[in-house]
C-alpha cells in the first residue's frame, strides 16, 4: 500500500493506483475529458491537472496518468490548478463550442469569456475513440495521424477500414459529439455507427441542433413524427 496526501488528507491506496483514482476515492472532484473508466489513462486533455510537490519544485501533472507515490503531496484545486483549468476550458470552448460536455464543464467552472479566434471543430483529439476501438473493441480500426496542428483521427489513408465492425463504440465515447459521424455520406463514414444505431437520424438534414448521439437521442426524439 502507498500512502499519499491529497489536499491535506492522508490516503492509502494500492500500488499502481493513479492520483486521480486516489482523489476520487476521497471524493475530491477533478474534471476529466479524455479519461474514461475502462480505457487506459492517456493524459491528453490536461483538464485533470493537479499540483504536486512543494516550494519551487511544485509542478502540475495530469492526475489520470500520474502514479500514486509514497509521501506525494497533492493539491487538487490550488489557485495554480484552477487558473490552468480555466484556461484549458477556455481553449476547449474556443475550439469545440458545440460540445455539451465541454459546455457543462465550462459552466461549472464559471468560464465567462472566450478570447481566442472562434473555431467550430468537432474533435478535441482526446483519443477516447482510439482507445475504445483498440482496447474494448479489439479492432484498432482508427488511430492518430500527423502531428502538431495537423494531427487528426481516422483510418489509415482515410480508406474505410476492413477491421472496423461498425460497432459505434467510438461515437459512444466521444465527448465532442457529432464527431466522426459523416452519415450524410455514409460511404465515407469511418464506422457507419450512426447508420447502425439511430436510423431516424438518416432522415435529418443536418446535425446542427443535436447535442448528443446516444440513447436517449434528444434530437431524434423531437423529430419523431
Amino acid at each position, binding site marked *: 500500500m502507498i500512502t499519499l496526501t491529497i489536499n491535506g488528507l492522508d490516503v492509502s491506496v494500492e500500488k499502481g493506483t493513479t492520483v486521480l483514482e486516489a482523489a476520487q476515492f476521497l471524493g475530491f472532484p477533478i474534471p476529466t475529458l479524455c479519461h474514461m473508466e475502462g480505457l487506459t489513462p492517456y*493524459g491528453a486533455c490536461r483538464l485533470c491537472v493537479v499540483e504536486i510537490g512543494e516550494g519551487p519544485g511544485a509542478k502540475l501533472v495530469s492526475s489520470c496518468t500520474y502514479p500514486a507515490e509514497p509521501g506525494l503531496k497533492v493539491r487538487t484545486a490550488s489557485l495554480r490548478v484552477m487558473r490552468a483549468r480555466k484556461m484549458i476550458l477556455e481553449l476547449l470552448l474556443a475550439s469545440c463550442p458545440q460540445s455539451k460536455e465541454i459546455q457543462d464543464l465550462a459552466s461549472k467552472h464559471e468560464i465567462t469569456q472566450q478570447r481566442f479566434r472562434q473555431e467550430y471543430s468537432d474533435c478535441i*483529439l482526446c483519443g477516447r475513440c482510439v482507445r475504445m476501438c483498440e482496447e474494448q473493441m479489439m479492432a484498432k480500426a482508427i488511430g492518430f495521424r500527423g502531428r502538431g496542428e495537423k494531427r487528426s483521427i481516422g483510418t489509415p489513408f482515410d480508406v474505410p477500414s476492413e477491421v472496423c465492425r461498425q460497432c459505434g463504440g467510438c461515437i459512444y465515447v466521444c465527448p465532442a459529439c457529432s464527431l466522426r459521424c459523416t452519415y450524410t455520406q455514409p460511404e465515407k463514414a469511418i464506422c457507419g455507427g450512426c447508420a447502425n444505431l439511430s436510423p431516424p437520424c438518416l432522415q435529418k438534414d443536418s446535425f446542427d441542433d443535436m447535442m448528443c448521439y446516444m440513447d436517449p437521442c434528444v434530437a431524434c426524439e423531437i423529430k419523431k413524427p
Partner: protein
Amino acid sequence: MKTLTCFDDFKALHDRLRAQADPNTTTIVIPAGTCGIASGAAELIREAQRAILANDLAGRVALRVTGCHGFCQMEPSILVEPRRTFYPKVNPDDVERIVRAAALDEVIESLLPPGPMGGPCVATQDQIDFFARQARGVLSGNEKVDPTRIEDYIAQGGYSALVQALSRSDAGWVIEQIKISGLRGRGGAGFPTGKKWELARNARAVGGKKFVVCNADEGDPGAYMDRSLLEGNPHAILEGLTIAAVAIGATHGVIYVRSEYPLAIKHAQIALRQARDMGLLGEDILGSGTRFDIDIVQGAGAFVCGEETALIRSIEGRMGEPRQRPPYPIAKGIFGAPTCINNVETLANIPFIIRHGADAFAGIGVEGNTGTKIFSLVGKIRNTGLVEVPLGMPLKEVVHEIGGGPAGKTRIKAVQTGGPSGGCIPASLFDLPISYDSLTKAGSIMGSGGMIVMDENTCMVDVARYFMNFLKDESCGKCFTCRKGTQRMYEILEDITLGKGTPEHIDLLEELALVVKDTTMCGLGQSASNPVLSTLKYFREEYRRHVEEKRCDAYVCKNLVGAPCQAACPVDTEPWRYVALIEKGQYDEAYRIIRQANPFPAVSARVCDRKCESRCSLGVGGGESVAIRALKRFITDRVDPAVYRPEVRSTNGQARKIAVVGAGPAGLAAAHGLSLLGHKVTVLEAEQESGGMLACSLPAYRLPREIVRAEVATLMNENITVRHGVVFGQEVTLEGLSAEGFDAVFLAIGAHESWRLDLKGEDLAGVYPSMQFLKAFNLRGEELASGHVGIIGGGNSAVDAARVALRQKDVTSVTLLYRRTRGEMPAYEEEVEAALEEGVTIETLVSPVKIRVRQEEIETALREGVELETLVSPIRICSREGRLVGIECIRNRLGDLDASGRRRPVPVPGTEFTLQFDTLIVAIGERPQSAPLAAMGLATDKSGRVKVDPKTLATSVEGVFAGGDLVTGPNTVIDAIAAGKKVADVIDRYLRGEPLVEPAEAKLPTVFLEPADVDEEDLENTTRAVPPVLPVEKRKKNFREIEKPLSAEQARAEARRCLRCDLAFTQERQPVCGQSAAVGEEYA
C-alpha cells in the same frame, strides 16, 4: 582488418599506429563535413589529390579529409600541418599553389585571413580570434582524424579509454569517475550523467536486456554540433557509448539519428563496421567477456522525438509521442527494459574524461558546470560556426570576442539560446556566465547549444512568431494545451505582426504561455512558451510598440512597415511616391508630395539624416539604397515652391491665440501647422534671425543661409507674427504669456548650452564652447579661431566647428581630438573625410566625453583636411598670462566592452603629451538651457531636458507643450520638424477639447502609381547616383555650398532603381481593368 582479441593486441596496434604517425608530415587537411561539402570541399579534395600527384609529392605531402572544424562560415577551407596555416574560403584554382607552397614549407600570404581591424594577416589557425579564445576538447578531434579511418582515431589515443574501462575489475570505477568529473547532460536539461548511469546500473535488466541510447535527434533550427561530431569523429561516440554500456551493464546500444543527417549516418555505419571487425564491439570485446553491440535507428525527423519517451516509442516502431514520466526510461524504456539515454556530446566527452582523468575535466569550467560545451553560433554575427568554450564563460565573450561582434554596423540586441524551446537573452545581460542554471534563471535554456545572435534588424515579436510556428507544427499534438496552446499563441503573435494586435492580446498571450508551460506533459510543451515568455520579459516594449503604436522598429513586420522609406520618415513623407513621380518626370507633383508632409523641403534636402535611405529595401538587401535625399534636392532646386498652396482652415471666428517660443525648425513647423488650422500664432525668438540651429549652428557650406531664409519666408502667412530678440525667461515668462491671452504655449528653445570638460582653465581666453564659436561666426561673422586650433569631440558639432575654423582666415591648422577610434565617431563619416581633406587633423582615443554625431560628416571633414587624433583624452589646459597655450592629453586604449558592445576608452598611464593650441573649441555636446523653465514649474531631467508625454508632447504644466532638442537633447533637424508638425495637431485638439491623440495606425502606401518598365539586367548594372561636389581647393577657405544637385538624367535613372515596395500594398487594390471586365461579361 585483424580482429583484436585481447588488450595486448590493442596496445600493440596502438603503438604501431602511433609510431607510424609523424606529426611533422606536411599534411593538407580539408574539412568536408556537410558544411564543407555544401561550399565546395569536394572540388578542393579533387584538386589537392591531382596537385599532389601531378607535382610528384605523394609521400611528402599527405592529404587528410576530415569532418567540420567549426568555422563553417570560412568553408571551404584548408589547414596545412604542421605549420597550422589556415586558408579560408579557398578557390579550387588556388589549391595547387597551396599544395606546392606546403611542400616547400611556405605560406601564401595573399590567401591568409586578414587580421583584425585590417591588421597584418594571421599566420596560423590558432591565432585567429575565433579559434584562439575557444577551449577545444571534444571538437579538437575533428581536425585530427579522418572519420572513415579507425586507425586515425586509435593513433590519436582513441579506444584507450574503453580499454581502461574494460580492464578495471571494480565495475563502479567508471561511474565514480564520471561523477567526479561533474559532467552534466549536454542535451540541454543538464542532468548529472554520473547519477543517471548509477540509476541505470542499479536498474534490473528486463528479459536480459538493458539499453543505452545515443540521442542524435538534433532538431533545433540553427544547432548542428551533434551532426558535426557524428560526422567528424564517429568513433568517439562509439567509444563513449561502449564505455557507458560497460559502466551500466547494458547489452544493446542504439544510435538514434535523424535521416536528415545522411553523412553522419554513413560515417557512423562505417565506424560501426570497423569497430566490429576490429573486435571493439560484438560478442566478446577485446577478449574481456563483455558483450555489446550498437544499432543505428533512423528517425524521420520529428522534433519531438528528441524527447526521451517519444524517442523510445519511435525506436519501438511506434508513433513518436511522449508519455508520462514516471516511470522514467531508466526504469522502463525500450520494450520495457531499462534504457539510459545520453546526448551525442555527452558521450563524446566520456573518452576525454577517462583518458585525461576526471579531475582534469572538473578543472575546466566552473563549480557545478564543469567541462566545455559546444555552441553553434549563428545569426547576425561576424564569425559563425561551432565554438567550444568552458562553461561559465560570459556570454559577451562568446558573442563579441569569438563571434567578432555584429556583422554590420548594427548593434546586437539579443541572443537566442537553446533553440525553439529556449529564450532570448537581451544584450544588457551579456555579462551572464553561460551555465545551465544561469540560463534557466534568465528565462532561457542551455538546450543543445544553439546560439542565434540577433541585431536591431530582428523583430522580437517576429522571432517569437517564427519559433511558435515551428513548435505548432512540431508539437506531437497529444497534450491539448501544447497543441492548441502553441497554435493559439501563434495566432496571437501573427495578429500582432499583422497590426491587428490589441493590448489585451499581450496579457492573454502571457496568461496562455504560463498555462502551456505549466500543464503540458513533456519537455517540448513545458519549454514551448519560452520564446514568448522571454521576449515578453525583456522586450515587452517592442510588443507594446507593435500593438499600441503599430510600429515595428526592426522593419520586419511587413503590414506595419509598408514602404520602409515612408515608415522611417519622422514627418511621414512618402519617398516612394515622389521617387516614382520623378521617374515619370512629374516634378511639380513630386514637390507637392514632399511639401505636403514636410514644411522644410529645401532644408531637409540638404541636412536631413536620411532615415529613409538607411531603411531602403535596396540597401538592406545588400545593394546601395536609393539616393532619396539627392532626389529631393533635385526637386527642391528645380521646382518653384509656389506650386504648393496650402489651404488655411476656416475657424469661423473660433481662432485661438498660441505662443511658440523658439523660431527653429520645431517652432516654425508648429507655427506653420497651427496657422493653417486657422489659429493666430506668435513666435518669440531670442536671436535676431529666424531658423534656430539652421541659422546659427549649421555651417553655410552645408546649408546656405539664403535657402534657410527663403524656406522660412514660405512658411509665413497672415496668421503668424514673429518677434525677434525676445529671450524667454527674461523678457517673457509663462505667466506673462498667459496674461497676454495665449491659450496654449509651445516651447522649442532647442539645446544651445555646451557641455563643459570640467577641466581647470576652461574659461581662459581662447577656449570656447562650440555653440558660442559657431553662433559668433554664423550670426555675427566674428572669427574667434586663430593659429593652431584644437577641437575636442567626435560628433557632428565638433566636425562642423573644425570645418568652420578651417575656413577662418587666421587659422593655420585644425586638430580634432577624440577619445575612442574613428570607427566609433558619431559624426557623419563623409563629413569627417571632407574635413581631413580640407586639412583638419583628427586625434582619436583622446577626448573624455561622449557626443553624438554622424559618420558621413567625419568623412567629409577628413577629406577637407581636418587632422584626426583618436584615443586621446585632455587632462589639463595649459595657459600663459591668462591665455591658452595648449592642452595636455592622455592616450587611451580600447578596454572592455560595455553592455552595448562598444569598447570603453581606458587611459594609458605614462602616455601624457602636450599639444600647442591658440584656440580650443570644446564640442562634446549640448544641453538645453532649461534652468529658467524649471523655475517656471516645468519638470526637467538631469540633462536639462523638459519632460513631456511622448505621445502628446504635453509638459507638466497645463496648456504648455514642448518639443525639439529641448525635449530630446541635441537631435536631427527632421526630428525637430516632426515634433513641430505633431504638436500643431495636438494643440489644435487640445484647444477644441478633444482627446489629444488618435489611436495609432500603420502608415501604409495608399496611392497606386504605375511602376516603370524597368529591365532587370540594366538595373543590376546601375549604381547609386552620387551628387557632384566642389573640389577641395575650391571650397577650402570659403562657404560656398559643397554639394550640387543631380542632373535630370541622373535623377531619373536613380529613381528607376527604386524597388517600389509600395506596390505590394497598392497594386492589388487596383482593379485590373481589362480582365475584370471580361470576367464580368462572361457571367453577365
